[in-house]
């Protein structure tokens, strides 16, 4: 395509990762860093932000209209892709990846593309554990489930309590807002916030830092452009886990 119109990709295959999550592979590889995201246009429905879980795939949790349509698409169907956008993770040295739910999507590539990674995955239950088999081949994986059906019984932040967090040069985190808040707290407690990077979710419309729908307090950073990855230190004084703004820009707590 000339200029910045969405790149149209054809779906090659759809892999069910869990009862609510599928990975959708395209016929196009996007040169990108782990942690970068794309705006995925589901024709006739909407356009939504999604991490690239592989350079040629997204991993989608069904939560509403667009994600449900996405998950029901078939090989040969077409999507529009804008991006990759955002900054992505900066990874060096011994790395700990901490994923909650579909937050595993941007972190999978960290394990696949970097040499020295340990992985913590949290999920509601064993069925919802994402990428467990793939990760197990690549690195040491520890698991937490809310209902105890696999691994540690409890939240993933709980796992951290018993771990030597200070030995990691880089800690990358993605998951639900409250999970990230607890991890942030725990890392602060263990004096490891300075090594931590969190990938945030905020309501996004443009993806390029213009429309202001993803702006983040206190300093008005654009999660789409200045993020979605922010340092733990930056987040300590932020709105993370306290509130976010919805599509209208109204704060939700």
């Amino acid at each position, binding site marked *: *395509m*000339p*200029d*910045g*119109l*969405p790149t*149209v990709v054809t779906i090659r295959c759809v892999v069910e990762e869990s009862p609510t999550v599928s990975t959708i592979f395209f016929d196009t590889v996007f040169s990108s860093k782990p942690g970068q995201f794309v*705006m995925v*246009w589901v*024709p*006739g*429905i*909407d*356009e*939504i932000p999604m991490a690239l879980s592989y350079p040629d795939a997204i991993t989608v949790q069904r939560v509403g209209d667009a994600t449900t349509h996405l998950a029901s698409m078939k090989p040969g169907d*077409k999507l*529009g892709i*804008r991006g990759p956008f955002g900054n992505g993770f900066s990874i060096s040295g011994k790395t700990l990846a901490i994923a909650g739910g579909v937050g595993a999507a941007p972190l999978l590539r960290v394990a696949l593309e970097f040499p020295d990674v340990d992985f913590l995955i949290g999920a509601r239950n064993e069925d919802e554990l994402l990428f467990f088999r793939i990760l197990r081949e690549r690195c040491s994986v520890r698991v937490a489930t809310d209902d105890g059906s696999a691994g540690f019984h409890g939240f993933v932040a709980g796992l951290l309590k018993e771990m030597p967090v200070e030995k990691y040069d880089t800690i990358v985190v993605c998951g639900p807002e409250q999970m990230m808040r607890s991890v942030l707290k725990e890392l602060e407690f263990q004096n490891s916030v300075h090594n931590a990077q969190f990938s945030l979710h905020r309501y996004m*419309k*443009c*993806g*390029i*830092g*213009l*429309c*202001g*729908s993803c*702006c*983040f*307090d*206190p*300093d*008005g*950073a*654009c999660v789409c*452009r200045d993020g979605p990855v922010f340092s733990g230190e930056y987040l300590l004084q932020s709105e993370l886990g306290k509130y976010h*703004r*919805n*599509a*209208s*820009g*109204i*704060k939700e707590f």
Partner: protein
Amino acid sequence: MITLKKSPVRIGEVSVRNHLILAAGVLGTCASSLLRMLQSGAGAVVTKSIGPEPRPGHAGPCLVVLEDGILNAMGLPNPSARFSDELEKLSNEPVIVSIFGGNPDQFAEVAGWFANQAQAYELNVSCPHASGYGAQIGTNPDIVKACTEAVKSQGKPVWVKLTPNVTDITAIGQAAEDGGADALVAINTVKAMRISTPLKRPVLGNKFGGLSGKAIFPVAVRCVYELYDACSIPIVGCGGVSSAEDVIEMMMAGAQGVEIGSALYSNPDLFQNICRDLYSEEGYHWKEIVGCAHA
């Protein structure tokens, strides 16, 4: 290059810190992002357009970047009355609240919510892609006049932002002036569309959108020039401004200041950069420049 002497500036009854103003709808939904623009050098900021009801905006895609511009149909997403919570944090800052409504009463109602917070109102009678609002109102001189009067009666400066998608922009400018407007802002986006050929459908969720950025700069300069000849209130130029040269060109066409939106995409530090290039000790007084291309 022609530069300006830095001096206190008042445009359309609003004291602004310099001639560069953040355009409506760009990074304008949070107090924090508005403040960030002020800190990075904007002389004043216009908020996202606020309307009578909260709106989530159109389905996506809402925006695509083109080679020489930006095409958007956000659909006026806005938090409505709740926006006054945000503005609490911006008291004493040069904040112009952009508002929209479907009729004069709605304009007045929305304006009323921000009576203690707005330095001025900017009336969005020009958004080309929200049915019942914006340009659907702003193409009718009588309605524009009535909306201006309705807001003006609240005793604050009123700027009226015009659409270029009309046969004669001066007729709308004059209607705003007749309604008591303190300034005209020209222009909002130019109605446009792109189609994704592989998907065989318009690329915006709303099909139609508005073109902004470099592509429309010559259209904006033309509108400012026409309005300067036809009206006697101050004009704020808007559309494709991305450099200090562009600011000077808009001012020569007749603008007392400019609003900047799309160009922040290529350069988030643009306000700062333009300020550096635009102002100097040896510069012209802005009055020597405004409208000088009409000689």
